[in-house]
């Protein structure tokens, strides 16, 4: 069941939206460390294959990365000989439909939609789908991502080449 969006104050809604917009901009700007810092220390980035999957571990995933694995991916992309990323590439993310499903003082469940265009050499690919964020507040009161679930609309279709960066 799709939970209706909570009625929350304008300020909270804006805070959440700004986090998601920030994330999109950091990815497009290739600021990997700043992007990773949006995640809580236990943070996980997860892209399941099928919508029915409920756990980030124990079943096949497209991405299933804790912060150590994110660090490996970042280190690999920044290496001068990350061959697959040598050709020109850029991304452009849009995030919309931001709905806060549940919130208390410390945690929040948020769903949203995204669209990513990816330029690679002379071609553009499109990826669309939904985000589901579990957010927590850190000691300073800032929102951090505990779990980001990414359901690609086209996740079960054959991939025309692979994904190299978080969507």
């Amino acid at each position, binding site marked *: 069941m799709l939970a209706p969006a909570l009625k929350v104050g304008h300020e909270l809604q804006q805070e959440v939206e700004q986090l998601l917009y920030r994330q999109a901009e950091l990815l497009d700007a290739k600021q990997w460390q700043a992007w990773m810092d949006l995640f809580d220390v236990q943070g996980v980035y997860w*892209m399941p294959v099928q919508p029915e999957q409920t756990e980030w571990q124990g079943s*096949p995933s497209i991405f299933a990365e804790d912060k150590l694995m994110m660090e490996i991916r970042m280190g*690999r992309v920044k290496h001068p000989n990350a*061959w*697959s990323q040598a*050709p020109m590439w850029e991304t452009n993310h849009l995030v919309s439909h931001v709905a806060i499903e549940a919130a208390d003082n410390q945690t929040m469940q948020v769903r949203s939609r995204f669209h990513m265009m990816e330029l690679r050499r002379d071609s553009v690919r499109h990826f669309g789908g939904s985000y589901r964020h579990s957010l927590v507040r850190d000691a300073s009161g800032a929102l951090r991502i505990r779990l980001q679930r990414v359901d690609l609309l086209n996740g079960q*279709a054959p991939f*025309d*080449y*692979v994904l190299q960066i978080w969507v």
Partner: protein
Amino acid sequence: MHSMNTSALVEPDRVHKTVYTDQQIFDMEMVKIWERTWVYCGHESQVPKPGDYYAVTIGRQPMIMVRQKDGSVRVLYNRCPHRGVQLVGNQKGNTGSAFVCSYHAWSFHLDGNVRAIPLANGYEGTRMNRDNPDCSMKRAARVDSYRGFVFASLCAEGPDLKEFLGEARIAFDDMCDRSPVGEVEVVPICHRVMQHSNWKFFMENQLDSLHPSVTHQSTGISAGRVEKRLKAEQGSAPLYYHYLSTFASSFEQWDAVQTINFPHGHGILKAYMGLRPRDPDTLEHEALLKTAYGEEKAEEYLSRSIHHVLVYPYLSVQSPLQQLRCLRPVGPDKTLSEIWHFRLKGAPEAIYRRSLWYYNLVNSPATMINADDLENWTKGQWGLQSNGGDWVSFHRHFGDDRVEGGVTYSNHGTSEAVMRNQFSAWSTYMQAELSREPDHEQGRHHPERGTRLRKPARPGGGDRSHPGRGHPHRCATHRTRPFATYTTRRRRACAGAGAQGGPRIATGG
């Protein structure tokens, strides 16, 4: 198409670029290799219940793998015999007790035999009536399975499945023997990735030990850094960091990993990952195997030195990690790869999770490893389409491999014996003359009528029909002479290392 002579394209130490780029050669490969030899369809556990089906492409042919009421698995052409419409439109599902055409409601039993034709009297006096086998779905000429892995051949003749697989059977033995009950079960999620390159790039790459430390250095180094830090901080790091860091091993280390190259183009890359740690999960797993098989057998199963097994020309099986990649060529420069993995029945969950990490890290569509392979192959395809050169070199350690009993053992892990052996097999397939189109009649039959179509007489041979002909399961267990419909012509020797590594050929007579 058949008249094209490919013999000048493969030399002992090099091949002509057109074998990767030419549409006519690709079409010939479909006819002479994919649509004749045994092709992997899927695992039996993909279709557990009667009516469960899975659509699969063999060469250019859309097929359906379907579970029968009697528990057997058949492979049928996905085509209604009336007007040719495909009978299943989805990749997988359950069709109930029949296939029903969405166009005019012709229906077919799960074995392909016609069940009902609407307003059947409209066919009175024509050749299309229920008694005509042409009114039933056409079947793959042969279907057989090995330890649960289902293969089909669209050609009624040729070696049987066991003979085709030859030593590469170890892929499935090594996987299944790691289960205390000797069986695996598919995880019903398949990663599919389109490669923008000829299928040969993938097959060569799988046993190419010279490339990892170059191609995969960025990921290997990055993972090694984190792994080292974890070990310093905690004393150990989970095995999956090693899956990645090991790609950055030195040239010397890779050179020490031997390849074994079998007839038919199959091959093995020996183990290098150290997948037998002494952690409690591994020990529990090993104890289960010892209970099931006894100390000696279990040790034999666990100490096999295998990283990949290739079933040429389309399958790469990573048996110690229970995964498999299957190629479905689409065009000279386009290849679909299907990536599956399996659970060892009766083995601890931790063993599954360990192999799952490899599946996710190395084989997923976000892989940090194969991404760089795909990039190489794409650029390779473009390079070969150019006029910058005509030949592809396979000279590395040419003449320095050990050949015993038709099997080529590389003295150096980085020897290009692998490619030489694959092209030796390729030449044999491509130079075989077809005495007739594959599957001309054998796939169509009507057991209920008890009639049997006669095959055209073989040149120089008698009637080679046998009772099982056309019946997938009976036929498959019946041993026919290898390549019986091929008029054998000794291929040009792909000399040196690969000389005896080509497919075995039976002389026709």
